[in-house]
């Protein structure tokens, strides 16, 4: 059970699949509390990631993470681009020292928080990344944890991102970035042999 370029690629492809399948749903989530483009943004990003991994097959984990990061940074734009990009860039850095997914995700989560300034409870992807990274570190991540984290954003008042312009009226809606992040974690636990 270890992280390899192959199962990383498998994980990312599975994430890409989910994003593409749920593209419209992600944009729909982004409509009442955002600008309706999260599905399109993420779909553009995962397409670039897949093309990059196809065209230049990385030999090393660090290169793989870096290619993923660069594809996301240069193709997604918006808020999610720099955030997802930073997450994978931090994993790239960390992967020089360790392949432990708990540590990698902790670094990624720290990067997201630093880049966007959001804390847990601000109704952003951080509400998924932080608790689930912790669970990963403890070796106990399950789908119900993912669902709980994602669904937990529904009751929150947004403090960061576009949804924050709504203030209290953001309550009652899932955060789109939390949802797409949920797919990343689901794809992870569904990837055989990676955990």
């Amino acid at each position, binding site marked *: 059970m270890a992280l390899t370029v192959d199962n990383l690629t498998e994980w990312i492809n599975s994430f890409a699949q989910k994003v593409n399948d749920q593209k419209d749903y992600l944009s729909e989530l982004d409509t009442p509390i955002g*600008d309706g483009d999260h599905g*399109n943004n993420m779909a553009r990003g995962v397409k670039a990631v897949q093309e990059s991994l196809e065209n230049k097959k990385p030999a090393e984990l660090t290169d793989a993470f870096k290619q993923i990061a660069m594809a996301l*940074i240069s193709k997604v*734009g918006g808020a999610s681009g720099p955030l997802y*990009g930073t997450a994978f860039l931090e994993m790239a850095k960390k992967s020089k020292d360790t392949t432990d997914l708990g540590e990698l995700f902790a670094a990624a989560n720290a990067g997201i928080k630093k880049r966007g300034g959001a804390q847990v409870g601000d109704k952003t992807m951080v509400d998924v990344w932080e608790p689930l990274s912790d669970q990963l570190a403890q070796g106990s991540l399950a789908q119900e944890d993912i669902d709980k984290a994602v669904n937990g954003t529904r009751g929150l008042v*947004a403090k*960061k991102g576009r949804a924050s*312009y*709504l203030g209290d009226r953001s309550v009652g809606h899932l955060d789109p970035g939390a949802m797409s992040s949920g797919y990343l974690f689901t794809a992870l636990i569904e990837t055989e042999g990676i955990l």
Partner: protein
Amino acid sequence: MKKIINDAGNVVPEMVDGLVRSYPQYLRQIPDTEAVMRSDEDSMAGKVGIVSGGGSGHEPAHAGFVGKGMLSGAVCGQVFTSPTPDQIYEAIKQADHGKGVFLVVKNYSGDVMNFDMAKDLAEVDDIQTKTIVVDDDIAVEDSLFTQGKRGVAGTVLMHKVLGAAADQGASLDDLDKLAQAVLPNIKTIGIALHAATVPEVGKPGFELKDDEIEYGVGIHSEPGYKREKIKPSKEMAEELVTQIDKTLNLDSSKKYAVMVNGMGATPLMEQYIFSHDLLNLLNGKDIEPAFMKVGNYMTSIDMAGLSLTVFELKEDKWLDYLNYPVETIAW
């Protein structure tokens, strides 16, 4: 959705291509990007560069304000989506003529983060940059713990002021001071009659009934602060002026610049009628704007509606900057 486009996924590259090829005297495109630069290289020599940009869909912003006396370059993101750091970085590199580059960013999480990352990249090249994050939209409550207010049409006035100062030789630090001084004096508030349709989404960002309007809507269909039955222009103007008054304390002893900005699908006919009502209200307070502009400057694709920007001219120089001649497509 009925639009003059080819492929919803391809609107930005085709739009930028059409724009640049239609106006080569003003613009050139940085190859392999959707960033556009001022063609008139000579006009930038020895001066601080000014780069702005953001999601597309706000045309003529931002590329329409690239030219002598205003912006050095503009980076065009996907529709309503911040451009990416690599493209912003390319524009910064080309805008730098040894004196550094000033970045004008609208206050959206995405823009702030992507411009930040580009800044980091530019630092590696020893290109000095400073940034102003414009947040003129008073429809949103400000707070230390949130993203804060949005950047909207007032950004164009920021471009104008900084562009004029840079053209007259202001240093990066001068521009920074100027931008910081100007910022709190620019306030904008908008009204929507119909939401914008993002090509890739295919339907309006929100639905308004046939007789409904919404106050305080953002330029990406972000929700506003109240919905009402449609009213006469006069009453819409009253609502917007009241909101502006709350933050700027409109006073006949002060000087103001005013911008009435169409959202893309609202004809000038309506913008001029609104201006008539607006000027009546201001005149009622003994205020005659020292500078005024009416038209489409910072649009929201095909949104129907308009925004009102009031800029308190604390210094006479700021008015000179607004009146300073420029060579751009859209100012």
